[in-house]
């Protein structure tokens, strides 16, 4: 089965890849968001600690 047939999904490409594409992008976005949240929290902690030391 050639690649072009595979991607055509016998005419249902829009639906099949539409679903998987959105699912994949949601997963990727969620991963990015959670990592970003972690980075922000760590930076806040460091700021708080530095502020703590200056007193």
């Amino acid at each position, binding site marked *: 089965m050639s690649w072009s047939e595979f991607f055509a999904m*016998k005419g249902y490409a829009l*639906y099949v890849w539409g679903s998987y594409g959105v699912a994949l992008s949601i997963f990727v976005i969620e991963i990015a968001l*959670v990592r970003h949240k972690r980075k922000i929290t760590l930076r806040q902690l460091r700021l708080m600690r530095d502020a703590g030391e200056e007193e």
Partner: protein
Amino acid sequence: MFYGLAGKLVPWFAAAAAVLFAVGLYIGFFVAPTDAVQSEAYRIIFIHVPTSILSMFIYLVMAGYAALGLIFNTRLSSMMATALAPTGALFTFIALWTGALWGKPMWGAWWVWDARLTSELILLFLYLGFISLHASIEDPRRADRAAALLAIVGSVNVPIIYFSVKWWNTLHQGATIKFTGTSMQIAMQQALFTMLLACWAYAIAMTLLRVRSIILERERNTQWVQDLPEVRS
């Protein structure tokens, strides 16, 4: 303690999720045959069914953790419930999206008031209710406990909602196609099961990762957080 443990577990679950996704998709797209009725469109079930099962399962687990946190006053279980909610909501959204896209070639309409899809939509509202209630209360303790109570009330209502929607749906339009497990070809079942495990592993990895940040936030002025390596560097 839990923070460290969660840290060690995350890479394992993430790796497991990646491998399982690859295997599941491979079986789903290359091994499973073309369906007689829907030709290729049915392959959407490999993402739709696991995510809808997971969306319901995560809600119940979330309500369980919330109940634990409320009854035993343990902050960790409330944090787990808060960490589970976004992932559960996203799974519900994926299930709705893929359900609609699957419905189009099958029933000819983007949105069909099918009993399952409608209940899924209500489940999404329950998730959003939980998240927005938790977000709109400043004091973390009250936020946890209030959202926990809502989750418990919600989980009691979920069966009632599912029953009433099914009742309402059969009133208007016969129950739409039922994918009976047995009639599905072996390869399809394998793909479905692998994808379910993949989504499950992914959900755990995400939740543990998120709960770590929540723990850091909540315990920020404790000593053990201060001398964590990642904080000091």
